[in-house]
């Protein structure tokens, strides 16, 4: 029973890590309607920034969270403005190729600058674990989990209450109609992409306490992030959170009760089954919302 509880806790906490990465991806998709294949590489840039801040300035990863998020906001905005925007009226697959191109370029830039070596921060708080009764919990994982929930809540308020948030929703519903209502669509896209990238910056800071950074680190997380986003319903924030927690739980339980090398098989089977029943994902808006 203790082991079962521990597995549930581990799964939920792992789900928190998946969630924090998926939120930015689903936001970008929901508003800009671009599948951002460079998402993992944005995470890599963020993690290197956190690593450098820790190594050169002695900053704890949690301290660098805000500056790194701002830096990635700018990076994301630049990508949107100069790579995606010129292609907005092109076919979706052209936009996808553009983000794949950005991904490859950033990955190789990382290899060029930092080499293939693995680097790890030893932050103290965030890497250590504490006991809660019989359960052992890693502090950084708990922080990540709580931050993921807070971020979803915060973004929800932002989308409902602020002008920019409402403009995001208007643009995502109908780009042309929104422009007729006086919304500057291009600017909203730049903001949305930037905000999505900033979420990845936050994720980078939170994950740096537990994971080392290397140029291909993004590929370790992005496949799962895409699964989470599709599972939750593309563009749905709450969907992404629920999807991430679900995948985390399956990962943990299947890794123990079935076999560590088969856990991906199990969650992909579940993923396919859910999509068969609900093709738009758990909280998707139904057919035609994409």
């Amino acid at each position, binding site marked *: 029973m203790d*082991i079962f509880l*521990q*597995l549930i806790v*581990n799964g939920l906490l*792992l789900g928190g*890590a998946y969630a924090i990465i998926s939120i930015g991806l689903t936001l970008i998709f929901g508003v800009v309607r671009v599948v951002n294949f460079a998402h993992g590489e944005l995470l890599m840039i963020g993690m290197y920034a956190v690593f450098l801040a820790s190594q050169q300035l002695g900053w704890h990863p949690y301290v660098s969270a805000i500056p790194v998020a701002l830096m990635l906001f700018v990076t994301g905005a630049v990508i949107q403005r100069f790579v995606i925007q010129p292609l907005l009226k092109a076919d979706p697959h052209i936009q996808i190729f553009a983000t794949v191109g950005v991904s490859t370029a950033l990955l190789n830039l990382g290899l060029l600058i930092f080499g293939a*070596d*693995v*680097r*790890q921060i*030893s932050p103290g708080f965030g*890497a*250590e*674990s504490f006991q809660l009764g019989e359960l*052992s919990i*890693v502090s950084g994982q708990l922080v990540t989990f709580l931050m993921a929930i807070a971020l979803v809540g915060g973004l929800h308020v932002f989308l409902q209450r602020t002008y920019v948030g409402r403009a995001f929703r208007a643009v995502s519903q109908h780009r042309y109609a929104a422009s007729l209502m006086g919304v500057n669509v291009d600017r909203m896209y730049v903001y949305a992409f930037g905000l999505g990238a900033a979420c990845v910056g936050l994720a980078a800071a939170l994950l740096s306490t*537990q*994971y*080392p950074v*290397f140029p291909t680190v993004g*590929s*370790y*997380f992005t496949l*799962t992030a895409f699964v989470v986003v599709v599972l939750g319903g593309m563009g749905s924030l709450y969907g992404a959170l629920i999807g991430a927690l679900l995948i985390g739980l399956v*990962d*943990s*339980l*299947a*890794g*123990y009760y079935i*076999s*560590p*090398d088969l*856990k*991906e098989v199990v969650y992909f089977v579940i993923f396919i089954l859910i999509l068969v029943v609900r093709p738009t994902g758990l909280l998707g808006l139904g057919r035609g919302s994409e």
Partner: protein
Amino acid sequence: MKTFARKCLSLCAGFGMSLIAAGSVAAADLKVGALYPFSGGLALLGNESYRGLELAVEERNAAGGINGQKIALVKADAVDANQAVGEARRLTSVEGVSAIFGSYSSALAFAATQVTELAGVPYFELGAVSDSVTGRGYKYVFRSNPTAKNFAEGMVDAVTHVIAPALKVDPKSLKIAIIHEDSLYGTTISGFQKEKAARDGLNVVEILPYSAKTVDLSSLILRLKGAKADVVMQTSYQNDTILFFNQAKAAGFKPKALIGAGGGYSMADTATALGETLNGAFNVDFTQYETREEGAPGLKSFVALYTKRYGTAPRSGHSLTNYVGAKAFLDVLAAAGSTDKDKIRGAVMAYKKPVGSTASGWGFEFGEDGQNRQAKANLMQWQNGKLVTVFPKEVAVSEPVVGR
């Protein structure tokens, strides 16, 4: 069309190279090929391996070469299996080399040997570890270095000969867990471990494969904890090694001993990333530089030679491995007294050196399959941030520390 153009190109390049070679090489020189990945992802360690061969050849030439002939190395860059085939063809048919040395990577060795065997040119493998390189019934493929099987058996032997005695318990009473990443590397080594452990009557309680790209090993660690594993053998790359140590520490899982199969356990970066946490971990690998000179005569002078020639200390054990193998095979070529492939095979079979007589501590004695039987992987341990050799005794620089 594209392949045709590529063939033309490689042909031109081949002619160009052979012209250059013909210009600089005197008629009486003995030409041998050096087939390594000099560019691409494997380039760093491919180049490090080549340096070992280069040093052995330069040393031999300075001492008069082979039976009065100077040795001329013809470099061939093999980035992948396709290129290995192309370059092996160039070496055998255009360059007309008497033998080929290689190759660092098993995939390259597989591909190149298929060409050399057909062409009847002896192939000397100095670094690739996959067992099947010499297990395919080829007559003219020979290998000096230990194989994946030696690695796996070295890990199991570490339990019987080092860990159990240090804990003062019967090896059969220890609960052993085998965990490995699930690509060819991990699967091959763990397969041999399983066989060897069963032969030795050891108690294997868990065999858990996992994907090297996983971001969570906490379930696997809970399984190991649940099975009360005393000894964990891990075959892993760098990232999963780091993840495993971090998560095991967080979960409070501390087995009596951890043994790695080279890979992530051998890299200095792993030590930097993990710091203290890695101390005490065992590792089985090719001979490294923290090894006792008595059991590996010539090790210090190799390091000195290397440093003098390249201006830096050796970057990994690969150069040493290749140097020792190349020296042996150059002796063989001298003993054969001819470039006839059967005379060379005869000389390889007749070549014998006792264990502990070379700079890596290996001996030489070749089996019918062309594999050196006297090359073993050593057991090392991370102690105070350094990877030091702890077993066998003849080459150990430090005592193994277990269960502290």
